[in-house]
């Protein structure tokens, strides 16, 4: 029997519960992970680089065996209500972990109870700790899009360019080294007006105005959920891709203009499937980098998504491989592998390894070496001769 869920040596991506907390971190809410212990220290040590400097409200419920066995949701609800009344967050988010999944906690009902008692908008997320942060972050941002975004009165507001929102900006994909500001600057230098950044560098009030955008740019998988909700609710089209490299960014900008004009959604950025240069990482960012490298260097480059991947992306040709056994055949003939340093042990010795640290995989270990590919794509290419 072949077991596809083992990792002899490589790391593990941040879990979906952390994804929820990360996506909502800057929005003034209170996130509670319904967990016994462990999720909190893992999150704030490895998944949340902003923890030391920003007092965002993220807690665990400290679930006990007895409470789980008895299905004592009232303990959770009571504790959350008490803390919410004291700390007065803008919203409350409850995120699940493995045991609540097994005992069948109805998170939507729990959230409704909390909202009824506090008057504070509340969400429940049936995360279970068994999926990657991409799933959790996407669900969280989708909930924000569903609940908070409203049509604003824009009368008298003059936009300097095509209004756009950046969806899926979280430190787990872009760290905290300025990629959010760099992306904003890049778009504004190319005729766009960035209304909001979901959810790094923007307030909840800025996100609420997102319906005014003509188009959304999904810069990582974490933005897919919100993109679909905003399309559904307001008809805003979206384009999927991270603007790295001059030529690829220009392709994206061109598609953004087209989508803003015709209302169609577009997914681009898939590398060539038989290429011997491979990027491993989160789907959207990895595919974008692969495409950018192909365009700039002329060397075909493909991507492998190692996290939860939206069907739109997989349907476009981005393979998904999470476990070591799944990755091995995809790397077998690779000449160059570009991936987080913790992938190095499973890369064939015949391949050249290019380290590209990823907060969502190796956490804080190589943070100082994470390149800002928005600003420094060419420097990265030059450093590694790509």
């Amino acid at each position, binding site marked *: *029997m*072949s*077991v596809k*869920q*083992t*990792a*002899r*040596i490589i*790391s*593990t*991506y*941040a*879990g979906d519960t*952390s994804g929820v907390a990360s996506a909502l971190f800057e929005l003034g809410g209170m996130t*509670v992970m319904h*967990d*016994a*212990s*462990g999720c*909190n*220290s*893992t999150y*704030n*040590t*490895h*998944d949340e680089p902003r*923890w*030391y400097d920003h*007092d965002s*409200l993220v*807690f*665990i*419920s*400290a679930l*006990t*065996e*007895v409470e*789980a066995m008895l299905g004592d949701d*009232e*303990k959770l609800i*009571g*504790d*959350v209500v*008490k*803390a919410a009344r*004291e*700390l007065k967050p803008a919203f409350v988010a409850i995120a699940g*972990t*493995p*045991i609540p999944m*097994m005992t069948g906690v109805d998170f939507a009902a729990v959230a409704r109870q909390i909202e009824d008692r506090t008057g504070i908008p509340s969400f429940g997320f049936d995360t*279970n*700790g*068994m*999926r*990657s942060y991409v799933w959790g972050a996407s669900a969280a941002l989708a909930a924000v899009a569903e609940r908070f975004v409203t049509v604003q009165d824009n009368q008298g507001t003059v936009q300097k360019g095509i209004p756009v929102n950046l969806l899926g900006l979280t430190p787990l994909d872009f760290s905290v080294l300025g990629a959010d500001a760099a992306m904003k600057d890049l778009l504004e230098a190319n005729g766009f007006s960035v209304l909001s950044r979901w959810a790094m560098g923007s307030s909840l009030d800025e996100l609420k105005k997102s319906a005014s955008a003509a188009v959304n740019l999904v810069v990582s998988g974490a933005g897919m959920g919100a993109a679909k909700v905003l399309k559904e609710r307001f008809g805003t089209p979206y384009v999927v891709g991270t603007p790295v490299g001059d030529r690829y960014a220009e392709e994206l900008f061109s598609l953004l203009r087209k989508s803003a004009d015709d209302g169609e959604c577009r997914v681009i950025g898939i590398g060539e499937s038989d290429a011997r240069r491979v990027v491993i990482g989160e789907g959207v960012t990895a595919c974008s980098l692969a495409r950018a490298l192909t365009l700039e260097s002329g060397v075909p480059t493909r991507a492998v998504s190692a996290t939860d991947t939206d069907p739109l992306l997989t349907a476009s040709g981005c393979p998904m491989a999470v476990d070591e056994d799944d990755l091995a055949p995809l790397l077998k003939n690779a000449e160059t592998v570009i991936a987080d340093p*913790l992938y190095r042990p499973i890369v064939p010795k015949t391949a050249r390894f290019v380290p590209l640290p990823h907060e969502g995989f*190796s*956490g804080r*270990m190589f943070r100082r070496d994470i390149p800002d590919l928005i600003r420094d794509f060419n420097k990265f290419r030059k450093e590694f001769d790509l």
Partner: protein
Amino acid sequence: MIRKLGEKEGKPLPISEASFPAPFDAGLEYAAPARGTWNIAHTGMLVPEAHEIFVCAQGCLRGVVLTAAEMGASERFSTVAVRENNVLDGDLENLLVEGVTDILEKLPSLPPAVLVYTSCVHHFMGTDLTLAYGELGRRFPSVRFTDCYMNPIMRKSGLTPDQLMRRQLYSLLDPKEHDPKTVLSVGGDFAVEEGDFTALLRENGFRHSEIQQAKTFSEYLELARAAFALTTQPAAIPAGKMLAEKHGMKHLHLPFSFDADEIEAQYEKLCAALGIPVPDWSQNRAECEAAMREAKRVIGDVPVVIDYTAFSRPLSLARLLLKHGFRVKRIYADSFTGEEKEDFEALKHEAPQLMIWPTVHPSMRVMPRDGDPRTLAVGQKAAYFTSSPHFVNVVENGGLWGFDAVIRTAELMTEAFLEEKDTRGLIGIKGWGCGLCQ
């Protein structure tokens, strides 16, 4: 929700108004970014040459995978991810057996021992671990498997994961003929520092052994030769009991303390068990007094705050310091062990205004952390909550015990007062002192 009598909201309160052992109500919990205490992955690595395999959900694996990576021990660490389909199909035994098998077959060579960590999910699913470990034993007869647990949901029922981990560290030992002159220190993360305890053993012809001295698995197996198993902190007691029951060692629990009378009483108990004369400790007591006086002379009246992560007896330390004129202002602790009861009651009268602060209560997330910049903090959490660069960077007793713990603590406090530390940088390191972690 029913609240126990005496429990208070998460506001700091004077010890005179605090209840024992849990002064604050239980609710949501916050985690301060002080990471020095060891987790079960750190502790398991104390078994030399052993391989750790965690069988858990992805979100639970993340913390321990990166613990191993940060300590440079990825080669000794593997994972099996439990997914929804395993819960729905109820095939956790199969996943465990096949997953561990898959990993062992991929290792360059078979390790002598494997620590397999199962999770809350296995507990709730009623996974037949006996069956799974039996099958693994049949498949890999040269490998010793032991059951370890990452099931924090059990932290308030039965043995905690921490207690279980410290016990399972010794579960791979085979009974051996005892050496009546060997004393095994059990369940501490750190090697015992050289001092009055080790000197006493040496001077009376006893050998001191501990897992930290074992560099190979063969040396580890020799730990079973000890005739005495000595524990000094509550979390290690189940390990001591197991060694008594399974290996026939005489278990002595001699709690860590800062009180000279209590230390002397522990030594009397130890000497009686070993059949050796009780030394005259007056010189050691005098040295402790001198060390405390000198520390007070240097440190003066700056505020002192203490947290529970530095020493297992924060209240014992507070009493010692208060007796020597230090301005102890705060204790950061969410609960106290039974060993602190006497000190707790005494402090209610001796220092009724000593403030007890929680560390996990949600209010601590937004509590101002800009106290007196001269504050001397004992412990990483105390340093974080007071933003103090003057702190004693010790976790879990730091290998100290006996009169030397008093003298060394006085020295560490003096050093902390005189030299600023990079608080943010130091307290963020996981598993302080675990070898490769710093």
